[in-house]
């Protein structure tokens, strides 16, 4: 097995490739896991900066896990035990809608509740569920990003879904 060379990622062209490949996923992962209050965008960027500063010490094949670990640790330092806050898109209510005001209100309440439940899920459940159902990533892709097996990802999504269902069952959504 040829010795894997560790200074490949110092080449800008390679680093750029890594950046383009993982910057969005890393940011999304931090956002889904920790919410928006702790600046996932900055943390993701800081992780890349740290990777570039340490490019001589990190092998190309380990770059992804380095990024995710570093970013996660940076987050943990800041978050500690604070509350997670997610955002959700404001539902556009057109002027000529044929939905009744009560219906619109219920929709808002549905979303508020949905958001609260997501925030209450375990981090693992939330990340897996949103990366799959909001981002559209395949189970295999999520497994690769998180460094777990596909079955684990499927299980987390299923657990998240069961909780959401239990809490949202009361709503009558069209």
């Amino acid at each position, binding site marked *: 097995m040829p010795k894997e060379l560790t200074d490949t990622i110092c*080449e800008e062209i390679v680093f750029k490739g890594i950046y383009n490949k993982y910057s*969005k996923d890393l940011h999304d992962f931090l956002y889904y896991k920790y919410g928006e209050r702790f600046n996932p965008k900055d943390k993701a960027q800081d992780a890349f900066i740290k990777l570039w500063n340490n490019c001589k010490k990190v092998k190309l094949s380990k770059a992804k896990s380095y990024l995710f670990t570093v970013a996660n640790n940076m987050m943990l330092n800041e978050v500690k035990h604070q509350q997670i806050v997610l955002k959700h898109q404001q539902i556009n209510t057109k002027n000529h809608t044929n939905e009744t005001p009560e219906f619109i209100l219920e929709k808002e309440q549905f979303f508020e509740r949905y958001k609260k439940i997501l925030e209450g899920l375990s981090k693992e459940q939330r990340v897996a569920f*949103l990366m799959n159902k909001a*981002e559209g990533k395949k189970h295999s892709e999520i497994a690769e990003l998180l460094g777990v097996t596909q079955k684990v990802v499927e299980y987390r999504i299923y657990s998240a879904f069961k909780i959401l269902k239990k809490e949202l*069952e009361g*709503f009558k*959504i069209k």
Partner: protein
Amino acid sequence: MNKDILIKKWLNDELNDTEKVAFEKLDDAQINLAILENAKYFKASNFLEVDDFNTFKQHYYSQKQPAKKLFELSTFLKIAGVLVIAFGVYFAFFFNNETQIKTLAGEKTTVELPDKSQVFLNALSSIEYNESKWKDKRLLKLYGEAYFKVAKGKKFDVVTSSGIVTVVGTKFNVKQRLNYFEVKCFEGIVRVSSNTIERLLHAGDTYQILNNTFIESKTTAVLPKWTTNLSDFEAIPFKEVLAELERQYNIQIKSEDVNTNRLFTGGFVHNNLENALIAITQPMNITYELSSSNQVVIRGKNK
């Protein structure tokens, strides 16, 4: 089928047609679908975009700290003076070994690497590699297009701004132009990794990312046509054909009333501009006009 299992399969996107029907007939079908549909509202990119690489790079350089002062400047400078000269000479002799080979428009060339691997460079392309380190590190940067015949040995990397191609003893073509990244494997096995897609190519496989769309297909050729002074294209946007023509003949093409996104199948020779122009304009129902200073204007015939 058990409801729980049905839901699990649905979450995994594994329902077959009959199961889909059964799922939709469940009494809580509505809430199931509502949960799924509305998850999309929480998508991260609805709220924040990551910076592109250039923005990141600017930020990186602006936040880098200036070098800290480690010791008394004047004494340091005296010593540094002698050392710098010594190192300067040493570096110039031994460390300037980044070899760069470039081709101009209309030019092709062959390069033999220190391990006897061969690189055939197409027009307007360049490669960079470190000759003295080649024994331990077979890494080469490519801008443009080249056909590689890699000698057996350690891992060989071709790095482009769109992706990395990794091989061990094989024959393959890499083309990296604007919005066009393509790798064709002619012999051996080649691993291509680009932004989100990684593939292992065997002889006859091709990997293409055109305008961010990924296409994998096959080729029956045994080597790229351009190495025999012909360009051929199969269902390629016409603008790419024009771009290659410009590179081979060192001309500039202006188009009027031509849909350059139309797909073109065909080819042109590299040694006769008139024939080349006929070959690409006739099938597309276009006329061409050659002006003196290496300019060509092509026009759609719908007038």
